[in-house]
Every structure is written in structure tokens, then in C-alpha cells.
């Protein structure tokens, strides 16, 4: 159905006018891809950031090179049409493309019009259009939303509308770039169920790139693996390729650890084989004891916790070594955040649980217009504690973080930050607040104004009133090897996040808030983030993460708070909350239930297995 003949893509100029993740790739964005994706397959494109996944997807729809520029060598044929001679608009009836941001995809303002738009462009007869719109509304469960303005829909609904809008012309190929990254687990399931139905019922060929493999890999019929920039692409059976993939979901990592063969890709397959492993783990540690307490690996030694995390999730072995010898980036980071001025390292903050909370929320209610965004929320954040804030899209997570930063003033109740100083964020000047709380927003780019990394750092020092060079030092610790003259826009998602975090840390706040930090991060970037967050928590920072990523929550959080409709519906230690809810349970917990294991590193350290397991051969 899709045939790649010796395809290479080269962008002109070092910066490369490329979309998304390819900014770091060398000029040659794609090298000699030569394979064929058969009809009616759900093919998952897997690879770390910057290997040219977006470029590969673009070549199928013809947007590369017709829209993005660059040079395409070789030939891509889709349903017999050569993309060199067919512009994207002439492929519109065989290829449907949905990009990363569904909002950037919509041309009209209501759901029904949006579904019809593509067919109108193709000039289909009105009776056909009407019939297909009705069919698609049913197929995607959108009938109740047909008259709704698109702007009022939730993220999952928007993603379904975007998929529906390219489905109505009945394309034979569907190309999706990270369709579930921005969605909560429930909405992601919804979208994936639709995709599977398309493949099964309509025989559509689906080619999809996704970082969150734990959500999608078990749906895939084939995996197209781009292991590293410039390496040959491989197409094959998911289990075979996952065994050698540098990026892998926890279920695969656990399977590799336990030596299962063939590798299980779904929780169900893994559970069937997990009996012996469960027994072994029960022998290794008294199961009852670990079920109730907090995770053992969090507090005692950050090094021990970091290293397995990095390797288990496919992190580079080189970064791991750095951690051990005490001169690595995380060690430098620790040194930098440790030398904090006296006002944050108050004596009261030193003695554990009895310490003054870093921030306190009591009976918080927030109304905007006639919408109640938060209702009666109580929360206390202790120093050194990491809290994961979860809940579906629109549950009030971002609003809660915004309230802690004074972006929103509470309608009722109190919010205080700054520990014993008890500042009310909305009435504190931003400059003062900055020393007590810092938020990295969902889109870290919103925080970055300057056109070079050095400029950004200088501005951050001025904003925070810190010594010149403070921020640059943090950047060096978080992001080794980033040049001063780079434009923040040219950084990868993970690097941008680290830069924004460095900017925030310049003012040495004791409360650090992150809104959806793992969106668009691959597993390596994610494990670096986990290392950073653990280091910060080890230095008695309070951290709040608003996230949909259950694996991240399981790995770094001590406590999980689940919000629904602006109210707290669960609040407790991560092991308890997460294992009691199927939607929020990480894969390892599902596989090893009823024992409360959450992450692969925990299992690995319990088994005393060597770390080398994670490295691909």
C-alpha cells in the first residue's frame, strides 16, 4: 500500500526548516528507507526523538517535500501514486493526515462542517457526503456533538473529530503523528479503539508515530523501527523489533528483565507468563510489607534510584556512568540547588514530616464565569515530597497549579506558599513569588522569550535577582553540551523543558510545579527528567506534577491526587491510589497485581539483576 524505494530526505541549511522533532537531526533527515507497508495493517513507527519520524510520515502525505522543502531522493508510492508527481492535495483522497495538534487542523467551526470539509474539497456529490457524515458520526461516537463548536470540545473529542474529518473521504491510508500524547488515559483508549475498528472493519492502513508506546504497542500489527539517526529502518513483527528497540514500554522492559520469549506486548500476555516472576518477587521481599509502605527506592539514595531508571527505560549507559562518579550532570545539579540562601533552607524545613508545609491549600474554590473549575480542594505540600496530580482533561489540574502561582485568585478558601511566610500568591508580586514557587507550563516555550540560550539565562538571572551565571550553571547541569548561541526554538522538546526548568530554578523556589512535563518526550528524555526530579526532591523541594502519564507518576511521585470536576476524589500514597484504579495503574502494577510493584527499576533492584539488561545489542 505504501512503498518506500531507497528514500532519503535532506534538508537544506543546518537549522533545517523541518517540523517537530527533526531539528536536531543532521542534514540528512532520513536515509535509504526501503520497505513496503501492506494494506490493512496498523503500523507503528517507533524510534527516539530526532530520528526522522515526522519526516517519514510527511513523505507519505506528500507534505515532505512539497510543503516543507528539502530534497527527497528515491520514491514513495501510495496506492500506486508517486508523491514526487502528486501534490498533497492530489493525494487527499487516498491519504488522510492528522498532525500532532488537532486544533491546528481544523478549518471550519462546527463538528459537522469539519467532517464534510475534505469531501467538499474533493467535490463529492451532496448525497454521498451526507451519508458519509452520518456514518462517521456513528463510527466515532460523535453524534451528540455534531452541532457543537469545535473550540468547546475536550482534547479527546477534538482528536476524534480530527480523525473523523480525514476519514470521510474514505482514504486508504491514515497517517497519524502522536495521536494520544496530549490525551488522558481514557481519551487515549477511546481514540485507539476507533483506530483499531478502522483497521478491522474498513481495512484502512494506519501508519502512526507515538512516544507513549505503553498505550499503543499492543495494537500494532507491524512495527517500523528507526533505531537511531542514519541507521537503516526495519519493518517487522512488533515482538521481534521491541526486543532490540532502544525505546520500549515498561511491559517490554519487564519482559526483557524476566527473559520472557517471545516478548509480551500487552499486559494480558505478560500476566499469563508472570506467575513465576510473582513468586520469585514474593520470596525476595516480604510482600505484605512492601504493599503498604511507600516505595523503598525513593528516599534513601538518589544514585541507586537514578541508575536503574535510566537503564530500564532505555536511557544511555553513558549518562548512567556519570551519575556514579559524582561529576555527572545530576551531581552538579545537586550541588547547585543545595547551596541555597538561608531563607529557603529554614531550620523548620529540615525535620521531616513535622515541617511546615511548603504550600497549603484549604477549601479552595475557583469559579470563572459560571464554570466552577475547582471546588473545595484541600492540599498540603511537604518539603521533599513529590505529588502527581492526575485526572482527565479539563479536571482542573492546570488551574490548580495556576492558583499556586497566583495566576487565578481563589473565589473562596485560602492558598499560601512560601512555607512559614504564608504568602498569598495572587496578592504577591511576581518577583517575590518567584523565590518561593516556580511553574513550568504545559508549553515550556511560553516561558522563553530570548533568541539565544545565553540571552535567556541572562534574563533569568535579572528576573530572579541572582548572581550572573547562576542560570547558565543550571543549564550546564541539566543540559550538558548546549551551545550559548542556540535558539530556544531549535531545541528538542526535552531540551526546551530542561531550559525552562533551569530558568525557574534560578530563583531557587522551594516549590516546583510542572504541567504535563512528558508530552512529546521519548523514554530517554523522560528518564533524564525523572533523575532531575528525584535530585530536586532529595534536596527538599516540593514538586507537583500535573500529568496523564501513569508511568511517570509511578516512578517519581510519593503521593497521587486525582481530581475530577474540580474536586479531589483520591489522595494517598502512590502505590495505594494507583493500584486501586485500572485507568491510573502503570503496566508493571497491572502485570504483577495483587503485589504492589509499580516500576521496572523496583523489580530489578529487588531481583538484584544487573543493569546491563536494558542496553540493546
Amino acid at each position, binding site marked *: 500500500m505504501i512503498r518506500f524505494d531507497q528514500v532519503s530526505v535532506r534538508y537544506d541549511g543546518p537549522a533545517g526548516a523541518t517540523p517537530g522533532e527533526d531539528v536536531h537531526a543532521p542534514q540528512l533527515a532520513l536515509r535509504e528507507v526501503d520497505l513496503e507497508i501492506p494494506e490493512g495493517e496498523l503500523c507503528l513507527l517507533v524510534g527516539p526523538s530526532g530520528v526522522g519520524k515526522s519526516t517519514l510520515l510527511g513523505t507519505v502525505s506528500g507534505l515532505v517535500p512539497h510543503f516543507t522543502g528539502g530534497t527527497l531522493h528515491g520514491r514513495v508510492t501510495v496506492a500506486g501514486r508517486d508523491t514526487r508527481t502528486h501534490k498533497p492535495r492530489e493525494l487527499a483522497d487516498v491519504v488522510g493526515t492528522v498532525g500532532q495538534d488537532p486544533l491546528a487542523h481544523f478549518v*471550519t467551526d462546527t463538528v459537522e*462542517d469539519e467532517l464534510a470539509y*475534505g469531501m*467538499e*474539497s474533493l467535490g463529492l456529490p451532496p448525497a454521498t457526503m451526507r451519508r458519509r457524515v452520518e456514518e462517521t458520526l456513528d463510527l466515532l461516537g460523535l453524534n451528540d456533538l455534531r452541532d457543537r463548536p469545535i473550540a468547546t470540545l475536550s482534547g479527546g473529542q477534538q482528536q476524534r473529530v480530527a480523525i473523523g474529518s480525514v476519514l470521510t473521504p474514505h482514504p486508504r491510508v491514515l497517517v497519524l503523528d502522536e495521536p494520544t500524547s496530549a490525551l488522558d488515559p481514557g481519551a487515549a483508549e477511546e481514540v485507539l479503539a476507533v483506530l483499531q475498528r478502522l483497521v478491522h472493519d474498513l481495512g484502512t492502513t494506519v501508519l502512526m508515530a507515538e512516544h507513549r508506546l505503553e498505550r499503543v504497542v499492543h495494537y500494532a500489527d507491524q512495527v517500523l523501527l528507526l533505531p537511531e539517526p542514519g541507521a537503516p529502518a526495519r519493518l517487522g513483527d512488533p515482538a521481534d523489533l521491541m526486543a532490540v528497540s532502544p525505546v520500549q514500554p515498561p511491559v517490554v522492559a519487564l519482559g526483557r528483565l524476566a527473559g520472557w520469549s517471545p516478548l509480551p506486548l500487552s499486559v494480558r500476555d505478560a500476566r499469563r507468563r508472570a506467575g513465576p516472576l510473582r513468586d520469585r518477587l514474593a520470596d525476595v521481599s516480604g510482600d505484605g510489607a512492601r504493599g503498604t509502605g511507600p516505595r523503598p527506592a525513593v528516599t534513601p539514595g538518589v544514585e541507586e534510584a537514578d541508575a536503574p531508571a535510566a537503564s530500564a527505560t532505555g536511557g544511555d549507559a553513558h549518562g548512567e556512568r556519570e551519575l556514579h562518579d559524582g561529576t555527572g550532570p545530576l551531581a552538579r545539579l545537586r550541588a547547585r540547588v543545595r547551596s541555597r540562601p538561608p531563607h529557603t533552607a529554614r531550620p523548620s524545613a529540615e525535620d521531616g514530616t513535622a515541617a511546615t508545609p511548603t504550600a497549603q491549600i484549604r477549601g479552595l474554590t475557583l469559579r470563572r464565569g459560571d464554570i466552577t473549575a475547582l471546588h473545595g480542594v484541600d492540599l498540603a505540600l511537604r518539603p521533599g515530597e513529590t505529588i502527581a496530580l492526575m485526572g482527565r482533561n479539563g479536571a482542573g489540574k492546570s488551574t490548580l497549579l495556576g492558583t499556586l502561582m497566583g495566576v487565578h485568585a481563589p473565589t473562596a478558601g485560602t492558598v499560601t506558599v512560601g512555607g512559614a511566610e504564608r504568602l498569598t500568591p495572587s496578592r504577591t508580586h511576581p518577583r517575590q513569588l518567584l523565590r518561593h514557587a516556580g511553574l513550568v*507550563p504545559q508549553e515550556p516555550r511560553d516561558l522563553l522569550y530570548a533568541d539565544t540560550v545565553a540571552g535567556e539565562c541572562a534574563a533569568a538571572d535579572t528576573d530572579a535577582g541572582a548572581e550572573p551565571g547562576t542560570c547558565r550553571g543550571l543549564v550546564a547541569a541539566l543540559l550538558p553540551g548546549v551551545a550559548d548561541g542556540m535558539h530556544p526554538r531549535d531545541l528538542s522538546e526535552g531540551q526546551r523543558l530542561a531550559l525552562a526548568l533551569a530558568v525557574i530554578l534560578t530563583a531557587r523556589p522551594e516549590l516546583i510545579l510542572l504541567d504535563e512535563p512528558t508530552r512529546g518526550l521519548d523514554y530517554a528524555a523522560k528518564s533524564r527528567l525523572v533523575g532531575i526530579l528525584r535530585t530536586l526532591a532529595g534536596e527538599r523541594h516540593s514538586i507537583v506534577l500535573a500529568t496523564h502519564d501513569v508511568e511517570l507518576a509511578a516512578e517519581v511521585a510519593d503521593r497521587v491526587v486525582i481530581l475530577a470536576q474540580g474536586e479531589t476524589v483520591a489522595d494517598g500514597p502512590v502505590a495505594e491510589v494507583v493500584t486501586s484504579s485500572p485507568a491510573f495503574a502503570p503496566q508493571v502494577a497491572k502485570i504483577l497485581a495483587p503485589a504492589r510493584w509499580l516500576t521496572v527499576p523496583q523489580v530489578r533492584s529487588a531481583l538484584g539483576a544487573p543493569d546491563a539488561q536494558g542496553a540493546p545489542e
Partner: protein
Amino acid sequence: MNGWLRAPEARRGLDLHPGAWWLWALGLATAASRTTNPLLLMLLCAVAGYVVAARRTNAPWARSYTVFLKLGLVVLVIRLFFAFFLGSPVPGSHVLVTMPEVPLPDWAQGVRVGGRVTAEGLMFALYDGMKLATLLICVGAANALANPARLLKSLPGALYEAGVAVVVAMTFAPNLVADVRRLRAARRLRGRADKGLRSVLQVGLPVLEGALERSVALAAAMDARGYGRSAEVPRAVRRMTALLTLGGLLGVCAGSYALLSVQGAEYGLPVLLAGAVLALAGLRLGGRRAVRTRYRPELWGVRAWLTAASGAAAGVVMVAAGGAFPEALHPPAVPLTAPELPLWPAAGLLIGLLPAFAAPVPGAGARPATNPAPGPGPGPAPPPARAPARPPAGSASSPVPEEPAK
């Protein structure tokens, strides 16, 4: 009220054609342009306001009606302000106040600053300002009632691309506002002030960058969805299209100017019609290039005819009345007299109320009120719990605060 007389609930396909609302409003505007009688103008405002109150939705454009009301008031106040301080060409004997007059050099003859302020002069300005304000309110009513995106969708195929540009621009504006808000909030996270004009200016560049990126992404998405596929058309046809369209539009402009001005009404209509025919022919020819089809186009049904006809009737009545009762439609400011309400032109204006009964009722989810209870059913009586921003129904609705002199 019999069941079949009752207006149906509006939904896609049963909605009134947006063009019908515009024709109705243009009819009312024509009527307003034909009189300076404050009573008639107030009646006209009341008619427009009542229809808006009865049939508007909670869509964003529907909220623009209050903006137009305020704009009308501003126009009125400005007109009075000028009459007060700069004098008025109308002679008058009832001096209200005498302002100190600023002596001006000879070359500024005819211009006066300060001086006597007469009741007649003010009255004349009031009548004039009310006429302008009423025109604005009629346009505002059409704006509030007609869905602009649907209106653009019913444009002929040749104008389709322009229509898409406008629709995209309309969806971009709210995104831009949201961006500004988000980035201003982000300034706070950097420890900078998030209030004041400076903060808006400083986020300008990032906002523009974001908008640019979004437009590129949208362009890519539109291209991938088949936007811009077109059929081959011979060169001669393309030339002819351009000629017809341009000539037609000029004719429409000249015709409507003549129709709205006092003299030249007799040749205004033929020129307008000829221009319209030419333009339509041009557009039809131009439509050959487009391979597009249209999904569920707006239907022009009986209710659309009724709505458009009621507006036209109001306009025709006033044009006719202009010949029959010139003094009643243009009450003289000198000498000062109370304006009379000419009965049958007033009755004619009331025809404009017809859409308040004939047009489909906005669906339960699209009504301005936020109460979850189902609407009170069709009919003229608006429930008291509706949005406070709307003017009170019936004759009490008037955008003009000043009581006209009696």
C-alpha cells in the same frame, strides 16, 4: 396558536438562511434612512431589538448586539457634542445657553466655536444622530442573528476562497486572544508584572510567532485535505469572468448609493439590479473553476421569504410614505414642535416584527439563557430569566436615552 403555525426549533437544515436576516435588516435600514422622525426611529429600534431578543442564540456573534447599541449611543453623543460646541446651521430663537465664542480669523469663515446654543439646533442634531444610530442598530441586528460562517458558506463558488480566508481569520482571532492571555500569565512565572499595557506589548512578538506557526500548520493541513484542487478553464472564460464581476460590482455600488441618497432614487433601482445581474453572471462563470461541492447548503424556504419580505415591506412603506407625508417623516426643527406619529407608516414598520414569529426558534442548547429547563416554547414572550444584556422586549426597548422634546 395552531401547531402548524408555530415556528419550528432551529437546527441544521431548518435554520433560517443567514441572507434572509441580512435582507430583513437592510430593509429596516432603508426605512431608517428615509426618516428623521424620532418616534418612527425609536419604533424601528424597538422592532429590531424585539426580533433580536426573540431569536438570537448564545453564539459569540450574537453577543455583538450590545456593542452595536453602545456604538449607536456614541454616535448620538458625538453628534450632539458637535452641535453644542460648534454651533448649528439651523437658525433658532430659543437660546438655551450662550457659550463664549472663540474669535476666528477671516479665512475660517463659516466655522464657529462656542456661541449661542439653540434648542432648535440641538433638536436637529438629535434627529440626525438618531437616524445614524438606528442604521447602526439595524446592521447590528443582522450581525447578531445571522451566522457569519454560514453566510460565507452560501457565497458563490468563485468567492469560496475569499470566504475560507474570512472564516479562518474569524477562528484565528479568538486563538490570538487566548495566546495573549496565556503568555501574559507566563510572564508572571518569570517574575515579571503580568498587568498593564507593557506586558501586552512585550508578548506581542511571541504571540505573532505562534500565530504564524499555527497558520503554517493550518495551511499544511488544508493542503493535505485537498484545498485548492481546481479544474482547468480556458483563458477567455477567465477574462470574461473578471470583466463581468468587476462591472457588476461597480453597478451595485452606484445603484445602492443612488437608492440611499435622497435624489436619484428613480434610476438607483435599475442600476442596482443590472449590476447585480452582471455580478451574478460573472460569479457563475467563475464557479466553473471550482470542483468543490457543498455539504448541506443553506435552504431558502418559506420562512426565509417571509423574513426577507417583511424587511423589504418596511422599507417600501417608508419610501412610499416619503412622498405621501413629507412633513411627518421629516419633522421640522424650526419652529420647535412636537413630532407626530404618522399612523400608517408606523403600522408599516410593525411588519418588520414578523420574523419574531416566523423565524425558527433557536434550539434549547443555543439559547442565551443558561437555565437548564427547556425553553418556554415559541411565541413572543421572552422569559424573564434570560440574559440581562439584552434590551427589554417590546416598545420599552430603545437605545436612545434622551427623551425627545415634545
